[in-house]
């Protein structure tokens, strides 16, 4: 349990009879930056909320720093920084009052670092939270989460509403933080280029399941996309397993396959394509391929 800062075992969550999380298993080792991806309503926020004990699970277990999520003690919470989706800060408070409240309730507070963050983000201490822009709220929330020197940082779409410069600052902060010993970050985001820049492990939620959970480099090696040109019309079935996507148009076939290996390459070679080109895939391409329904389409010639 100590090696893994986050552990999720067979986590199931139903909302009004609809299955949002369907038997999720996840382990995040210490010192890892874990990027949790998924389309809207895929269950990312629900999973993070269950992890932090804000939402009860229907079945299964979630552990943070070795403690069951639904019974996190003050001491354990004091080691975790959390930025919620939508940055639900207390709207009618002034920034200064909210900061004081957080400082008084925290077990440890790095005033110097917090002052540096406030200065960097140009956050006004005398303005009400409701008068701040979404981006400023995000920056304030992030600063509050970082000021406690967290051992584990959980960020639910933290860069939502931030401009490009602020996002870049955030990413640099995240990298700085991880360079400190034993820090772990779990974050979900829709901006895949951000995730690709900082994450060293990726999880993709689709249809209530964690369809991908591996290192970023491994993911890029495992999923391959080819454009194949056949001498005559393209065969409808290549007898390959784990086809994520396949499109046929006359002699041309574009195919995406998971867990690419030599056996699959050999099987493909038996169809003797006259041209085979591997198409480079970014994380965004992989994400789109993994989250859209598996399709095999044949277009008229």
């Amino acid at each position: 349990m100590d090696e893994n800062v986050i552990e999720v075992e067979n986590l199931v969550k139903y909302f009004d009879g609809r299955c949002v999380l369907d038997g999720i298993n996840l382990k995040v080792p210490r010192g890892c930056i874990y990027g949790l991806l998924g389309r809207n309503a895929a269950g990312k926020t629900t999973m993070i909320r269950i992890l932090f004990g804000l939402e009860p699970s229907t079945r299964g277990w979630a552990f943070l720093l070795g403690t069951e999520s639904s019974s996190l003690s003050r001491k354990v919470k004091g080691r975790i920084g959390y930025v919620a989706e939508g940055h639900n800060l207390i709207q009618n408070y002034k920034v200064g009052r909210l900061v004081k409240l957080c400082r008084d309730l925290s077990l440890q507070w790095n005033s110097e670092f917090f002052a540096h963050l406030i200065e960097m983000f140009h956050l006004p201490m005398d303005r009400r939270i409701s008068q701040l822009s979404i981006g400023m709220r995000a920056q304030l929330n992030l600063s509050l989460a970082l000021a406690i020197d967290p051992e584990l940082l959980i960020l639910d779409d933290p860069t939502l509403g931030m401009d490009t410069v602020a996002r870049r600052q955030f990413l640099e902060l995240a990298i700085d933080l991880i360079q400190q010993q034993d820090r772990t970050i779990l974050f979900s985001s829709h901006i895949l280029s951000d995730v690709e820049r900082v994450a060293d492990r990726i999880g993709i939620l689709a249809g209530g399941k964690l369809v991908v959970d591996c290192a970023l480099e491994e993911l890029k090696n495992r999923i391959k996309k080819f454009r194949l040109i056949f001498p005559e019309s393209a065969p409808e079935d290549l007898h390959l397993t784990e086809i994520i996507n396949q499109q046929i148009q006359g002699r041309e076939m574009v195919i995406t396959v998971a867990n690419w290996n030599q056996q699959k390459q050999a099987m493909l070679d038996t169809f003797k394509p006259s041209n085979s080109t591997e198409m480079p895939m970014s994380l965004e391409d992989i994400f789109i391929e993994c989250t859209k329904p598996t399709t095999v389409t044949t277009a008229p010639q």
Partner: protein
Amino acid sequence: MFTLIKREIEDHVAFFLGAAIATAILIVLLVSVIFSHDIPVHGIGLLIPGIVVVVIGLPAMGASQMYTDRTRRISAFLSGLPVTRSWILAARIITGILAILTVLLPLTITAGVLRSLLLPPIPIYPGLIVDMSVTAFLMAFACYCLGLQSGWTASRITPTLGALVLTCILVPLILVKGFGPHIKVILILFIIASLTCTWQKFRSAPL
């Protein structure tokens, strides 16, 4: 805990101001009752603001604490800090108790002082003031607990009306049972049931 209580007081300072004003009015009325020749008539004048505080003020405070928490997602934010739900609710309840004491303590002290200064025309039971204060505290706290319970419910009208009806039933119990041990037991049981229900709801609710 002190920070959480301080936050609750600052956020609901209007109720404390209201409590202070009500206390001042009640003390003035109490003194005028003692010095008047027509105690029953003036006594009713004392009873009305007292009932208003207990029936409307305290449930409103409890409901307001829970309702603003839900709408402003205060507990959701606080739960992101090193604070447990038990602490949040405990701080809230302690704030409610402080509001009740803001009204009751000065009243009890005034009544005690007046009793020692002016000998009553007929001998009275020496523990009467303490008995009355304890019962009034339990009654006020029971009404406050009802407010807490109704404030955390998503639908607004039914629980609010229900709480109001229950409060209206609770308060006249004093007229039926007096200030003796029976009413104290009833009120303590009611408070335990109400707080347990609120605790269960608050603990298991998604924030």
